[in-house]
């Protein structure tokens, strides 16, 4: 009886010591500290500034004057465009106009059409700012040349919290952070341990293998709130991004997401001999999610054909759940499906990781 108590105490001691060791290795490595805490903050500041709400940028266009014949009409176009608030215009000779279009200094070149009235627009329709420039420029020039609008539209401008880009971005950054710290933090350190033959050394002791794996997850769970709190507090204070739903639901979502990616990190590193192999694997796995799972822009922008795939990615599910809770105030029941999907990824990865783990 007393022996089983002491054995249980010894086991608890082992898990604690393993977790403590992981924790110490974490905070004694300045690099990991930055990537975990500093990077999400820096990213949110940079993106927050880049996408802050401000007066819409004017579109920049060039009017090309190639000959004396067209010079007068070019000058007229310049006058019409210069009068508009949302257009910045300059007159340039053809080569210069083309060079500026190529390098993105102007979004569109207006060329007076030879021999007839009207203008030719030269632009690259795959560039959003060029398409915008075409539409704005065309509007201004047509009106300047006497077109009558069918009606005057009423514009209502939306600026309230919840619908701004930063509101969309912060939950995405939370999801991204959970993914990268889980995959990199665990995958990398496991591979490093294996390279150093430390895993082999540990298996030469009576250490329970489950305790070893468990310690990684335990440390992730403890670090999660410490990682997320600064970003959430910061975005609340600086960008006024709040949490509409319950903090408990948010915490649970983050916990499931964080552990899912931690377990995926275990899985990706379960056989890798060195950190290089693991970084390759992590990049292969995380890059598609980085792009497609709605971190920086909505995943719905991708073609319908790939939507079913994107929808079942763990980061998509996590980001959707986080946005639901933070922006729309979704309840636990609302996001349960998404959390569950995340958890399925976690459980499958865990089973595979334990099955395939190379203890040498």
């Amino acid at each position: 009886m007393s022996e089983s108590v002491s054995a249980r105490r010894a086991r608890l001691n082992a898990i604690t010591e393993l977790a403590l060791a992981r924790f110490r290795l974490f905070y004694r490595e300045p690099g990991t500290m930055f990537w975990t805490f500093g990077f999400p903050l820096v990213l949110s500041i940079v993106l927050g500034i880049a996408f802050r709400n401000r007066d819409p940028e004017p579109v920049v266009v060039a009017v090309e004057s190639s000959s004396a014949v067209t010079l007068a009409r070019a000058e007229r176009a310049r006058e019409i465009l210069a009068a508009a608030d949302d257009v910045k215009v300059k007159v340039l000779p053809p080569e210069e106009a083309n060079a500026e279009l190529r390098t993105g200094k102007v979004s569109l070149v207006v060329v007076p059409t030879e021999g007839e009235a009207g203008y030719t627009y030269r632009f690259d329709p795959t560039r959003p700012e060029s398409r915008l420039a075409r539409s704005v420029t065309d509007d201004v020039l047509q009106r300047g040349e006497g077109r009558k609008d069918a009606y005057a539209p009423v514009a209502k401008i939306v600026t309230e919290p919840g619908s701004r880009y930063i509101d969309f971005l912060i939950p995405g950054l939370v999801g991204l952070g959970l993914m990268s710290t889980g995959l990199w933090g665990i995958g990398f350190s496991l591979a490093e341990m294996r390279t150093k033959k430390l895993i082999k050394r540990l298996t030469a002791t009576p250490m329970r293998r489950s305790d070893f794996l468990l310690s990684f997850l335990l440390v992730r769970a403890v670090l999660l709130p410490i990682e997320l709190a600064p970003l959430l507090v910061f975005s609340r204070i600086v960008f006024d991004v709040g949490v509409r739903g319950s903090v408990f639901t948010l915490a649970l979502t983050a916990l499931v997401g964080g552990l899912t990616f931690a377990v995926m990190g275990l899985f990706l590193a379960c056989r890798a001999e060195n950190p290089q192999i693991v970084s390759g694997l992590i990049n292969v796995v995380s890059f598609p999610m980085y792009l497609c799972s709605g971190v920086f822009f909505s995943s719905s922008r991708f073609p319908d054909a790939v939507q079913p795939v994107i929808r079942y990615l763990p980061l998509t599910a996590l980001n959707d759940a986080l946005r639901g809770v933070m922006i729309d105030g979704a309840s636990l029941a609302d996001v349960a499906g998404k959390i569950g999907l995340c958890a399925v990824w976690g459980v499958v990865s865990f089973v595979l990781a334990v099955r395939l783990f190379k203890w040498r």
Partner: protein
Amino acid sequence: MHGAATEPLPEEGSATSELSIRCRGLQKTYDEEVVAVDGLDLEVRVGECFGLLGPNGAGKTTTVEILEGLLRPSGGTVEILGRRWETDERWLRERLGVSLQQTNLPDKLTVRETIKLFRSFFTEGRDVDKVIDLVALREKEHAKYDTLSGGQRQRLAVACALVGDPKLLFLDEPTTGLDPQSRRMLWDVVLAFKEQGGSVLLTTHYMDEAERLCDRVGVIDHGKMIALGTPKDLIDSLGGSQIVEVTLAASPADDDAKDALAASLADLPGVKASRFLTGRIVLTVEHLHLALPAVLGKLRERDLELANLSTHHATLEDVFVTLTGRALRE
């Protein structure tokens, strides 16, 4: 031999329980062609320090890792402390101390934290402070692993092996690459462990280490045990206690001439054996004062000019050279 693996084997009686390690016909083949261990028999008694000697690639580490339960043998039987890895892994792990060849412990953990971590894996074990003192790392107690010298790292590795209070200690090349002082400090740790009744299996390619620490040694080459005995027995088997090495200004060109020359020296008074080895004549000699003048006389008689001559007490190194015709660390 199945079934009763947890009990001492009946036919061996109490003799078996006096063995820390007992393996028979040990075999390990990698990828079905590279034979690393080729039918090795080994017995290590309780309280004994046994040294496995051999050059790099002889199969020492493979053998040790099989005995440590880290590798599965391709064939043969292994009994550690009278038990088997297949049935009693936990029981064994609690009672073994292991120091692998070239382990890197976590860089950013201190000496104390590392030992404490390893202590936590064992249900019963030694006091962390006592182990720190035992390996003389008190001054470095709070230093991180990446700031330790090679000798300190190796002592920490041994501390991690000792903290579970093992009955049997495995040390795989514990002093390779260390300076003489660090080596002696580590030897003291091993001797202290032995004094308290612990058994040790160590591998090394340093013969002085084996002579200093080991009660018995086994010389292993190409996965086979080629000699076994106390260091003294093995050295005595050379037939003479002194080794004379002669380098000629010009060695005979072909092998037959070399053999003939070596043979002509072997018959001289006091000379027990003579052979050509990597450009030198190596003589095993009983009475230096008789042998040396005779050898010099013979060489002068044959008009052979000396480039160098040296003598030393016979060591295990010479045993290995005699057995294999190769130097240990070639």
